[in-house]
């Protein structure tokens, strides 16, 4: 943990500082290009001109070290699950995960007989936001991302969490 993290009592200055920090985090969530299946196409479509993820500050990064948000877009198979876990581990903190689409959320259409499909990516990594849809419309994805931003904005990195 960072040396100053959660070391401060809550007061006005720290709180406003905190606000700025979480504002920065929430405003520039660079996402990790992690397309797995059909949802990835929709993710690309969202990043493309019509919906433009850059609008909300999301820039694709292909190295996990520089990414903040991992959008798990697509079906997670058993073969892939271990890799996903590894890649998630390799991301620098703070890191967030979005499960995009039915497959990533719970195995989706492939859950009944999918012997090789992981029934939900949350079995291997913690997920922050679940976006339903198969594939989710770009609007849904953006909405999910905004939800995530809300969540990030509520975080207080410096303040001791009041119990």
């Amino acid at each position, binding site marked *: 943990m960072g040396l100053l993290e959660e070391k401060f009592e809550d007061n006005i200055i720290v709180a406003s500082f905190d606000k*700025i*920090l979480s*504002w*920065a*985090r*929430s*405003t*520039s969530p*660079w996402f990790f290009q992690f397309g797995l299946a059909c949802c990835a196409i929709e993710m690309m479509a969202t990043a*493309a*001109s*019509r919906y*433009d993820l*850059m*609008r*909300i*500050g999301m*820039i694709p*990064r*292909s*190295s996990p*070290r*520089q990414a*903040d948000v991992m959008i798990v877009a697509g079906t997670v198979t058993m073969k892939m699950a271990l890799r996903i876990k590894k890649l998630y581990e*390799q991301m*620098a*903190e*703070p890191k967030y995960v979005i499960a995009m689409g039915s497959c990533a959320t719970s195995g989706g259409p492939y859950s009944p007989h999918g012997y090789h499909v992981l029934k939900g990516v949350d079995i291997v990594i913690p997920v922050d936001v679940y976006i339903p849809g198969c594939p989710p419309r770009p609007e849904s994805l953006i909405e999910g991302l*905004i939800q995530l*931003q*809300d969540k990030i*904005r509520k975080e207080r*990195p410096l303040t001791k969490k009041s119990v």
Partner: protein
Amino acid sequence: MTVDVLIDWLANLVDFPELAFILAVLICAIPAFLFIAVYALVAIYGELKISSFMQDKVGPMGQGPGLHAGKWGLLQPVADALKLLLKEDIIPASADTKLFILAPFIVFIGAFISFAALPFNQNLIIADMNIGVFYILAVSSLGVIGLIVAGWSSNNKWSLYGAMRSSAQIVSYEIPAALSIVVVIMLTGTLSMQGIIQHQDGLVWGILPNWIIFQNPFTFLAFFVFFISGVSECNRTPFDIPEAESELVAGTFTEYSGMRYAFFFLSEYANMFIVSGVAAVGFLGGWHSPIPGFLEAPGWGLFWFLFKVGMLIFVMMWFRWTFPRLRVDQLMNICWKVLLPMALLNIFGVGIWTVLAGR
């Protein structure tokens, strides 16, 4: 010149000349750093917006619930920078820790100290050295070492590829760039940046400003040779094979996160500024206004210089968002088989031209 002026002025105030000197340099250097930082923010913003506009989209926008990046996303780069500051700093276990830490320092300093020799206007130059241009060429080689160190110490295959590619690329393109600068020196007879700019006063061919680019056809060619080499030295598309995202993930910087990555990023943008700055000084008349005698005051000098640099940086971005990238051997071919002969041709051409024209 500014430093000198400042030193003299401070020396009157303070008794110790050393202290005055250090103070004066600090007074210059801190703004220089701030300038780089602000410039980088602006350039990143510009890059995001320009790329977006070229791609028929809007780029960062700061509206709506949860999307407050300022109006038109003006604060986007600020948020990015702050966020990078807040990112965890990862040093891979298998990396060579010492060199891994050292690399951003080398790369950043290599870019940072070049700024000392850029003339922003008639007076605003931190160190107007006798060997100004040569100095910039020389210290740019520091960046190469930094990149090799970064790539090698990461112990990551992509990084290694990126480092090898970029070092080979930068050193190769240094030759045509330097040869094109030689063309400028041949005409101006000085290596000092201010000297070069002062030489470009007045008119040539009756209507054109007496910028070196317009002085004869070979200098015109030399400008392009220099600029293309410069683009390549900054590792920008179409010469961005070291960071080729579709091949090498993130190239040299694959393992870098947080602030260390930010410094590489910063140096990349700083390098763009330096290359454009040298091109502006060497070929486009530096702080001279495009219409001689019009708006030539020092304040306007700053404007003209930044304007020219900005335009060149815009062209670099324009390149980036238009072209595919070259393959590494084609890149080398262009350097050795196109640009180098052209640069040599320019030297001969300008030499003969000046000898015959007598100036």
